[in-house]
């Protein structure tokens, strides 16, 4: 039976969080503008949603397997793991951005337009702020899913808590498995709690 020193565990947990943060961050940068586009152009939007829906149905292990042989984006390592995680994070954020924007009271949108807001002002001052609690909800789901999925990244040499689990499995060492699994679970619960609070606060502020 091997054990993990606290400092090593902390470093690996930090690595895990970094992978998740980068992945979710990149997904936000891609999915929010895409969601705005999808809400504006319903037909193209449906296509975009179906595509990201499709990505979501690929089993995680298979996804990593698919990515490895692709030149430039694939290969063994953290980069492949992050790309896969970004792909998985897109859908919840994209879907919630679309839902949030389409959920803005049509009366408010019409009044704001009638007062002389340009489409850009409408987006920045009305639609995005009012959709923000819903968008945060999407980011919350993406983060929780990513924290769990990132453990699988270890299979492609992505690092993070999955490494401990993988080693534990290989050595049939349940303590090592737990050393990886428990922090991941706690991180997921913590992220869920923090984002839920932000989401509710914002919703109250937006008059919902």
């Amino acid at each position: 039976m091997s054990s993990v020193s606290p400092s090593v565990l902390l470093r690996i947990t930090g690595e895990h969080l970094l992978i998740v943060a980068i992945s979710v961050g990149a997904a936000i940068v891609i999915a929010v503008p895409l969601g705005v586009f999808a809400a504006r152009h319903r037909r193209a939007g449906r296509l975009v949603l179906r595509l990201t829906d499709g990505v979501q149905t690929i089993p995680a292990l298979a996804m990593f397997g698919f990515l490895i042989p692709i030149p430039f984006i694939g290969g063994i390592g953290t980069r492949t793991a992050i790309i896969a995680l970004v792909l998985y994070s897109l859908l919840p954020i994209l879907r919630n951005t679309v839902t949030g924007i389409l959920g803005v009271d049509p009366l408010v949108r019409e009044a704001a337009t009638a007062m002389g807001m340009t489409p850009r002002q409408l987006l920045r001052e009305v639609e995005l702020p009012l959709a923000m609690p819903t968008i945060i909800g999407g980011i919350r789901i993406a983060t929780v899913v990513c924290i769990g999925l990132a453990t699988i990244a270890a299979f492609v040499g992505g690092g993070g808590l999955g490494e401990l689990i993988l080693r534990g499995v290989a050595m049939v060492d349940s303590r090592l498995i737990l050393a990886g699994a428990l922090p991941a679970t706690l991180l997921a619960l913590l992220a869920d709690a923090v984002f839920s609070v932000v989401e509710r606060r914002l919703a109250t502020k937006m008059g919902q």
Partner: protein
Amino acid sequence: MAGSIELRDVSVTRANKEPILDHVDLYVEEGESVALVGRSGAGKTTALKLINGLVKPSSGRVLVDGLSLEATDLVQLRRRIGTIIQGAGLLPHRSIYDNVTLVPRLRGDDLKTVEPEARRLLNALLLPFEEFRDRFPRTLSGGEQQRVGIARALVFAPEILLCDEPFAALDPIVRREQQEMFNALRRERSVTMLFVTHDLQEALRMAPRIVMFEEGKLIADHPAAAFISSRDSRVRLLVSSAGLADS
């Protein structure tokens, strides 16, 4: 001063459906007030939305100050028009003060010069400025929100006022009070007003000229007195259902 409005042979149609507006002609002079009446679905709201470009004509032309809207910057035009809609449509995430000063902020006006007028209007509408300025719409009653909507439309001295059933959701006593407050404030300055309502009583309180729509057609356009005594059977039906028919 400006604010003349003209609909010139305007139709609004949707594919394979009855026209929403059917060859409508209407001229409203600068400073004139006109009430648009008719049942719901008659086309009066569509007629209103043509003027700020929220609805585009399928054929015919819409002119404000003699200029066709096709050749007009709609965003700039809308910032000269005060719009009041049923339910107010306030921004739920902005304070009452931010809501009232929305158009001046969009125009880039100096808010220091706007604040006294915002204060005066809210006070006149029985929404004491100091008490209400930092509150949010959800903490106000429907009637109070509607009055914020009125202040928002008047605060920048618009050339045109477009009102779409602003008082329809209110109970009769409150409605009467708000009609009077609104009339007192809008008459301070000369402004062209189109007022949509299904309630003829309200129309008569708001405007000396009544225009009636039915199934997308403009079927009557008279001074109030002539409207009430019209021989047209469709007008008579509306007049008698409002309890105004002379026996």
